[in-house]
């Protein structure tokens, strides 16, 4: 029977090429009209080392892995025990493995999955190909995907290689298809309605964020490489050059953020991207952007913490630093994308908010959103009204930090005669002259808060959906699993609300109160051992009496099923 969602893993040691095969499988599935998601798990080695490509393919939009794996294809077993915990195999799962790879490790065997032997290496050798291409064929056969899409994916990946190599890959792939067809596997994927193929995209969140930045108008980027944010930068470097912008690799994060602020002071919308350690280093100067009222966007692709932590794993534990990490009272913006695809929209929106309010905006993405590759509909290119309020003809009394009603003061750009002023991180009066007077401090503090509190963030502030007395509150990448859990709960007849703020700062008390209207029980789901999101909610919003919290490290991502379990447990009402 064809199934609506199939999850599978391809595992192998360094050099086995399981990531390449995984990406090709996702591309082939996307081209054939499926939805899908792929993440990777890897060991600590810089190159090679054991790795697993984790894929989920479905005939409906997905943003999360499923509860369990249907299938694992092991090219070899090397060190697989290191991430055995991440392979959700069970007695219903099937494992396709090469008998030549030796015995199944105990950590895997213990899961009780059904073992099917396929001599991947031998088949590959017989056609001068590589075992990963055989594995790709096995997988495509198991899923019931058309051969043609596999061949196209091979063409795309091997573009420019010699005909012999390509032929060998074709052959290995086809041999895999044949071997897979012969297996007794229950992994055939159903085919739902597909959108117009030209609207379907495949991308990581990091690349999507890059495009969002450019759509938003970013034309200057300064940054320092860091896992898992580097792909934002590596995508932007050639892209900016194409559209006439600049990317500089700075000497460190202190320089990155200041270069971005300098460019923005010059009138060019500017961005930097980093992860937790780099964000920490930028905080002093993000505060400078607050005080000097210079728009700037900082993408933080969160990883496991604290300190250097686990650079290759996801976690949602930079929420607190993003909200509270500036010294002094420093009003600023914090937003978080709600899916891989939403990295595009949210980044573009962040640019718009920063520019419109002349404040720094932190975008909290994470390793999952940033590095997962997903299939999604092309996000529409939204043209936001507003943007930076620029004074092109300043009068004699021009005051850069004038106390306007909405708190936003028109800004002159260098080059504008008569608009000269000095941007300052010291407290200042309306003209920008440093001042330690009580009245200036009070007035400027109020103005900086007012411009953010009074801005109309519209419906984009959150994704809110459904009715009922139970609400599940989550944010960022966790929203994916929550969304699916809520859908399943509804399918079971439960009335559940989904509240997922995209705008985390400034807080939106009236909107949140409206969203929570009538809710009697709240379930908070987040990937932070310290329950940072729950603390944030408590601090800033009025929650109903009954609050349950699912908060844990990013070590093991949430599965829709366990969230559903918690919803259902107390959710009979």
């Amino acid at each position, binding site marked *: 029977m064809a199934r609506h969602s199939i999850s599978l893993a391809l595992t192998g040691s360094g050099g086995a090429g399981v990531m390449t095969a995984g990406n090709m499988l996702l591309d082939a599935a996307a081209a054939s009209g499926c939805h899908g998601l792929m993440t990777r798990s890897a060991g600590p080695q810089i190159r090679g080392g054991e790795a697993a490509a984790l894929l989920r393919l479905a005939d409906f939009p997905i943003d999360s892995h499923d509860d369990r794996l249907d299938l694992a294809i092991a090219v070899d077993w090397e060190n697989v025990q290191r991430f055995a915990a991440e392979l959700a195999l069970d007695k219903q799962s099937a494992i396709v493995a090469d008998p030549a790879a030796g015995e199944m490790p105990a950590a895997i065997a213990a899961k009780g999955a059904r073992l099917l032997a396929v001599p991947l290496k031998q088949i590959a050798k017989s056609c001068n190909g590589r075992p990963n291409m055989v594995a790709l064929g096995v997988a495509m056969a198991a899923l019931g995907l058309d051969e043609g899409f596999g061949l196209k994916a091979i063409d795309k990946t091997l573009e420019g290689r010699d005909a012999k190599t390509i032929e060998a890959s074709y052959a290995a792939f086809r041999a895999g298809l044949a071997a897979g067809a012969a297996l007794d596997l229950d992994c055939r994927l159903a085919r739902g309605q597909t959108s117009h193929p030209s609207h*379907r995209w495949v991308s990581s969140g990091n690349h999507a964020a890059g495009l969002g930045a*450019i759509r938003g108008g970013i034309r200057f980027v300064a940054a320092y490489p860091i896992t898992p944010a580097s792909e934002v930068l590596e995508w932007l470097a050639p892209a900016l050059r194409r*559209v006439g912008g600049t990317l500089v690799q700075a000497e460190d994060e202190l320089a990155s953020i200041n270069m971005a602020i300098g460019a923005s002071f010059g009138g060019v919308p500017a961005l930097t991207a980093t992860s937790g350690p780099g964000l920490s280093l930028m905080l002093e100067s993000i505060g400078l952007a607050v005080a000097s009222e210079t728009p700037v966007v900082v993408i933080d692709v969160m990883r496991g913490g604290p300190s250097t932590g686990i650079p290759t794993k996801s976690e949602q534990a930079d929420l607190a630093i993003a909200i509270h990490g500036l010294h002094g009272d420093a009003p600023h913006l914090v937003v978080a994308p709600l899916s891989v695809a939403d990295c595009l929209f949210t980044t573009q929106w962040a640019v718009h908010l920063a520019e419109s309010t002349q404040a720094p905006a932190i975008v909290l993405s994470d390793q999952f959103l940033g590095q997962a590759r997903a299939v999604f509909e092309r996000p529409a290119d939204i043209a936001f009204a507003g943007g930076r309020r620029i004074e092109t003809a300043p009068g004699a009394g021009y005051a850069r930090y004038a106390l306007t009603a909405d708190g936003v003061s028109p800004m002159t750009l260098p080059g504008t005669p008569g608009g*000269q002023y000095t941007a300052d*991180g010291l407290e200042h009066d309306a003209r920008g002259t440093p001042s330690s007077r009580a009245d200036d401090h009070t007035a400027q503090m109020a103005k900086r808060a007012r411009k953010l509190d009074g801005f109309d963030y519209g419906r984009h502030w959150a994704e809110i959906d459904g009715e009922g007395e139970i609400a599940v509150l989550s944010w960022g990448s966790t929203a994916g699993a929550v969304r699916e859990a809520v859908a399943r709960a509804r399918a079971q007849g439960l009335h559940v609300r989904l509240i997922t703020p995209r705008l985390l700062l400034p807080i939106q008390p009236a909107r949140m109160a409206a969203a929570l209207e009538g809710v009697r029980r709240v379930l908070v789901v987040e990937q932070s051992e310290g329950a940072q999101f729950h603390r944030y909610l408590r601090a800033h919003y009025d929650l109903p009496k009954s609050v349950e919290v699912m908060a844990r490290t990013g070590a093991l991502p949430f599965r829709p099923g366990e969230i559903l379990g918690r919803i259902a447990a107390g959710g009979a009402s």
Partner: protein
Amino acid sequence: MSAAPAYVAKDYKSDVKPVWCPGCGDFSVLAAFGKAFAELGLAPERVAVISGIGCSSRIPAYTRTYGFHGVHGRALALATGLKLARPELTVVAAGGDGDGFSIGGNHFLHACRRNVDLTYVVMDNRVYGMTKGQPSPTTEPDWDSALSPGGTGLRPFNPLVIALASGANFVARAFSGDPNACAAMIVAAIRHPGFSFVEILSPCVTFRPDQRGWKEQVRQAPVAATGDPARAARRLMTDDGFNLGVLYQGDRLPYRPPPGEGARPADLEAEFAA
């Protein structure tokens, strides 16, 4: 030849009253900025003076150009971002020895190496003035202070040597006691393409009253500027810190980001298609 100059020095002076102590060397540097910009005929709105934190770093607010008084130590990073984004502006970074060589040392190194067309003026008074008298990287090892009783015991930096070693394209020294000579150095620095570094010895009369003696110590450098880094290094490493003038003038091409290719954002979308 006899046409009136487009601007005069006072066109660059704002109406903000400096917080500096009477007699502080930085007053002369401010005057030299005005003279230099006037000499170059720069429209005030096309100049940006960028600084960090310190007494000397207060200078942007006292000029009538655009300015950015950033955080401590990051002036060069701000200035680099601005110049790369707006190459047509004249961007001058300015500040103190603590700001530039202590907390800001890394940006100094990398700005020299990057060789963006900026001018960097450091008002070196061999002390942290703003925080009331602590030793800086250029302070003499035996200078006594509350934080380093009896002196630091550390050999001071020669910032010009560091500038040269890390790739600055123009290296000069001036003394605030001679504002005209300071202005001339700044003019030459701004004119020279790439990263130009000017150290201005600018006494702190409050915490280093001994620096009043500098006017007897400074002298015009006995030989002309060289374009050979190795020779310049030899000269600077044996110099006592009081030779004034342009000491090195290189010919490296300034860094400019590659030009754009005229694409529209929508042109970037092709690669995303499934």
